[in-house]
């Protein structure tokens, strides 16, 4: 009898060791890409490795990355929110309007957050309440929210934000660390914990992998999705506060086209566009990569259109590489 036990096969609880998985993971690839870009930039321009310059460069991505965290959750759950840039515009416009009425900084922030939450709730209600596809709903609200902003502002601009308000976009917490960058870091930790360490996070993955199974397992699918749209609205509002404070003015064309940059960031971060998988560290790395590429190319005065081409190629190659690798390995083993 004892012999039987010794010859029993060991069944591993995961297919590869922890170390092997880490090496092959998406995040490792992103870290490698980030390091490569960092090195190339350091050699290509003498101005890259300057704490203040790097600090200035973080403004390229912090606002977009804040939205990308919430967007990552939405995409993992199998939905999408394309109205985020328009929520920025509407939030900024409403805050600008409140300035004309004489509200001060604390009230402006509350009004901004409330506007973002309302926009998010509107999206959430249409998606979960009426069961409409989120891509259709948010393409609609993308035009609707920016349209409202144009209606209020026309070709005018709101200016005259109080001096204390500008701190959100131009203030520094300590040395070179801007308020925006610290907020970005704090939000990264919060979203990382929520997605990877809580029941809510597990529910998001469950919905993205199989919504029906999740529903029958007792996950309140509708409620979770509604909360996710509230979160994108809230994040867009926070980004709007930062951006408006940084610019010191509002125009209806503010943050035009950001929704696609945010989605690019999320997908580059390894989130499956069809839902079900992805991590917050991946999104953080993608944000850093996009920020460094934009800034590094900017230092070399590379025209913006070349930057877009490079980001596009980076996106395609980073997505294609693992698939090609898997295919190559599969062919060899047969």
């Amino acid at each position, binding site marked *: 009898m004892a012999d039987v036990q010794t010859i029993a096969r060991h069944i591993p609880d995961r297919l590869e060791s922890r170390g092997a998985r880490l090496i092959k993971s998406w995040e490792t690839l992103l870290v490698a890409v980030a390091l490569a870009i960092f090195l190339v930039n350091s050699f290509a321009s003498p*101005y890259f490795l300057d704490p203040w*310059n790097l600090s200035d460069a973080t*403004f390229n991505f912090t606002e977009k990355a804040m939205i990308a965290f919430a967007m990552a959750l939405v995409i993992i759950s199998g939905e999408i929110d394309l109205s985020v840039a328009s929520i920025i515009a509407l939030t900024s416009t409403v805050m600008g309007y409140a300035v004309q009425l004489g509200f001060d900084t604390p009230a402006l922030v509350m009004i901004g957050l409330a506007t973002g939450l309302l926009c998010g709730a509107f999206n959430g209600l249409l998606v979960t309440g009426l069961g409409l596809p989120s891509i259709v709903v948010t393409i609609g609200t993308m035009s609707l929210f920016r349209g409202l902003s144009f209606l209020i502002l026309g070709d005018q601009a709101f200016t005259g934000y109080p001096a204390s308000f500008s701190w959100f976009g131009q203030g520094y917490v300590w040395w070179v660390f801007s308020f925006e960058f610290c907020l970005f870091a704090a939000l990264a930790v919060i979203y990382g914990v929520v997605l990877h360490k809580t029941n809510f996070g597990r529910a998001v993955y469950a919905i993205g992998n199989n919504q029906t199974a999740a529903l029958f397992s007792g996950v309140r699918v509708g409620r979770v999705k509604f909360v996710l749209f509230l979160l994108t609205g809230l994040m867009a509002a926070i980004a709007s506060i930062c951006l408006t404070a*940084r*610019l010191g*003015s509002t125009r209806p064309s503010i*943050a035009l086209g950001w929704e696609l940059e945010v989605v690019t960031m999320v997908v580059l971060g390894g989130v499956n566009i069809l839902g079900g998988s992805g991590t917050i560290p991946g999104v953080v790395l993608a944000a850093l990569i996009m920020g460094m590429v934009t800034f590094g190319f*900017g230092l070399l*005065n590379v025209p913006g259109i070349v930057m877009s081409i490079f980001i596009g190629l980076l996106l395609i190659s980073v997505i294609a590489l693992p698939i090609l690798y898997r295919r190559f390995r599969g062919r060899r083993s047969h």
Partner: protein
Amino acid sequence: MKILKTLLVTAAVSVAMMATAQAETKKIALVVKALGIGFFEAANKGAQEAAKELGDVEVIYTGPTTTTAEGQIEVINSLIAQKVDAIAVSANDTNALVPALKKAMDRGIKVISWDSGVAPEGRLMHLNPSSNPLIGNMIIKLAADNLPDGGDVAVLSATATSTNQNVWIEEMNKVLPNYKGINVVATVYGDDLADKSYRETQGLIQSHPNLKAIIAPTSVGIVAAAQAVTDAGKIGQINVTGLGLPSEMAGHVKSGASKSFAIWNPIDLGYSATMIANDLIGGAEAKPGAELKMGRMGTVKLDDKNEGAMADPFIYDAKNVEEFAKIF
């Protein structure tokens, strides 16, 4: 040992030379609303010309892909990081660029705006392509130059409430007595709509049989008026002039409906902005009443808002319109 020594000395000398060369070259950034726009490409041509003339200036021509303030701020941040000596910007937003440009000025960079201005707290001075009195004088001069014996002229404006056009017409009326024999017989409004401008021109042709020239200080109006004159078979009899774009007017200049018209010259604008930036780097101060050097364009005098006008609008006629039509 000797070889090593030689190598070391050569290396040291070349490093020293590179260092001095870098210290001497002044970097002036020409930031435009967006790359790939003919008008700004032409401005860059002028800026490069200025750099060549000055010798010790490197012009960095840059701008965002789309005409957004956010894109321009990213560009400005990277220019601050490169420690350029001056930034000359045509702004996508009067106010939104101010915080970024203030930061640039805090770090010792000379900031000016040209073409499309920045709010006063975000720049040292603003270069307008021209000024209202110069434009007002130019539009009547264009008509009068082709009428040595005088005659009746009419004005086709934009809307009755357009600030720009009204100021220009007012300035025109001030200098009208200088042009003997020229009578302004009517002012009509085409609302900057092609069809309304066309119909208003037809009305002018019918009600003023002795009309010799039509002045349209609007790029929409001048094209519509030239078309109406052509369609009425009045080429050679009525000369259409005013402010227009070479690309839209080239055909009408060729047909003779318009003998000449005016608008700013983007090449001169880029040239002058670079020259002014260089003057400021050299220690010139931008304050009301100051005169800044613009090379072959002379000097610009700043008003009490630290704004200055470059020159008369540039005249386009059969000799040069084809060349500029390719640009804008």
